[in-house]
Every structure is written in C-alpha cells, then in structure tokens.
C-alpha cells in the first residue's frame, strides 16, 4: 500500500470472483466433511462437533482484530485513508465473528458445564473485545469528518487492543485467587484434522468478507471524491 496523493483515490481493485466461490465451496465441503468423519467423543459425545464452528470463529475474531490493530497503526503512521477503511472493514467482520463466538460458546457451555456463561478469563476478555468492537463501530457512525473519524477510531482500536490482554490477565488473576480454574484438555489427533481444515475455511471466508467490505468502503469514498470533483468543476486530475 503506497500513500495516496493528497488523500484522493479512485475505485478499488475488486476481489476476484473465484476467491468468493472458493471460500464458500471449501467452507461447505469442510463443514460437511468434518461433521461426518469425526467420531463421537468419549466424554462429550457429539458435542465435540461444536469445536468445528466455535474454535475457528474465535480464531478469526482475533485475526480480524489483529488486522484492525495493524491497519490503525499504519493509518496513524502514514495517514493513508485506505488503511482506515481496511480497519473499519476488519472491525465489522470481526465483531460479527466475535458475537458468533460468544453465542456458540454458550451453546457449548450449557450442555457441558451446565451454565450458559462462566466468568473465566477467556470468556470475559472475548466479551470485552466484543464491547470494544461495538464501541469502535458506533464511534465511526457518530463522526462524519473522514479524517477525524479515522484518527479517533484508530486510537480507540489501538487502546482496545492493549486492553484485551490486560482484561485477560486481570480476570485470570481474579479467578485464580478464588480457586476456580478449568483445566484445558489435550486434543485427540482424529479431531485435529477437522479443526485445522475448519480454521483454514473460516480464515479464507474472513479474508473474502473483509476484502469485499473494504471494496464497498472504497467505492463509497471514491464516489464522494468524484462527486466533490464534479462539484468543483469536473476536472480534478
């Protein structure tokens, strides 16, 4: 990404169509494949299959938030509006997967732990991440000036990214002091292949979603620039 001259840019390069088809067909194939091939777990029975949607959703949530962080830093560094639009697209997609992760986690927690929610470090920091995403997106919708919106949301995104590991740490500490801790179990190899395939499929879908959302944002801004240019006399080279 090279800095755009004087903050103006034209239409984006569209995401290739085959990427979308590939992402969705691969996703469908992998989901069906992993559900059909994985044997029922000795402890959890068919509930184990929740792993193929919950874990990948959590994985891409944090990946998308990583994109927000990097794009925000890049925007503050280079003042390239395209980085801001990329951060916004990643935040939208990330918040979707973050909400999905939370709901799927509850649907897993209820039958295995007997509760919909537990105040442990992972759950709480994921919820806080979701709230930060929501705040980030509402801030964007409440500020009109593009440059101001970019700088403010970049600051909120970066501080939010600093905050999430701190929440994790503090809740972990809070829980440890109260002597309740869940012990993670190792993963049997027959489930690993399904999990890895689903991680790949979700990652591909996320890349495609972010790309297309970014494309839409670029078109919107390019349209505003074109309208401005037309208003200024139609020859803004």
């Amino acid at each position, binding site marked *: 990404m090279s800095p755009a001259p004087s903050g103006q840019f034209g239409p984006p390069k569209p995401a290739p169509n085959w990427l979308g088809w590939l992402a969705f067909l691969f996703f469908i194939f992998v989901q069906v494949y992993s559900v059909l091939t994985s044997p029922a777990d000795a*402890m959890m029975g068919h509930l184990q299959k929740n792993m193929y949607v919950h874990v990948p959703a959590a994985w891409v949530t944090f990946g998308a938030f990583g994109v927000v962080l990097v794009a925000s830093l890049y925007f503050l560094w280079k003042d390239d509006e395209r980085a801001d639009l990329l951060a916004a697209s990643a935040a939208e997609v990330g918040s979707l997967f973050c909400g999905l992760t939370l709901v799927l986690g509850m649907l897993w927690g209820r039958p295995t732990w007997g509760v919909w929610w537990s105040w442990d470090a992972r759950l709480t920091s994921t919820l806080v991440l979701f709230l930060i995403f929501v705040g980030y997106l509402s801030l964007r919708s409440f500020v009109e000036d593009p440059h101001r919106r970019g700088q403010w949301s970049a600051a909120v995104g970066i501080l939010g990214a600093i905050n999430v590991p701190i929440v994790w740490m503090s809740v972990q500490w809070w829980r440890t002091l109260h002597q309740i801790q869940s012990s993670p179990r190792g993963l049997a190899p027959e489930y690993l292949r399904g999990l890895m395939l689903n991680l790949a499929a979700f990652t591909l879908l996320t890349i495609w979603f972010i790309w297309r959302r970014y494309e839409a944002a670029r078109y919107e801004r390019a349209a505003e620039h074109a309208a401005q240019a*037309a208003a200024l006399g139609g020859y803004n080279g």
Partner: protein
Amino acid sequence: MASGIAGGGVGYVVASYVITWVVLGAMLVRTVGSVRRARAEYDQAAKGEFRT
C-alpha cells in the same frame, strides 16, 4: 453421564451449525449487496463528473 450429555447434546450441536450458517449466509448477502450498491453509486458519481 457421558451418554446423558451426548443424548441431550445433539440439539445444541444442530443449533450451533444452524446459527453459524444463517449468520454467515446473511453476511454474504449483506456484503455482496453493499459492494453492488457502492459500485453503482460510484459509477453514477463518475458519470456525473464526466457530464459536467
């Protein structure tokens, strides 16, 4: 215990997959729609620029 969880769990698994597919499907529709709308808006604006 294990069989009890497994027996009652299928509903939760089905719900998880249904929710995932519905959410991703809705996102697909929304994303494709937004790109199409933004693109049409841009084409309109670009044409307007050339007319003047």
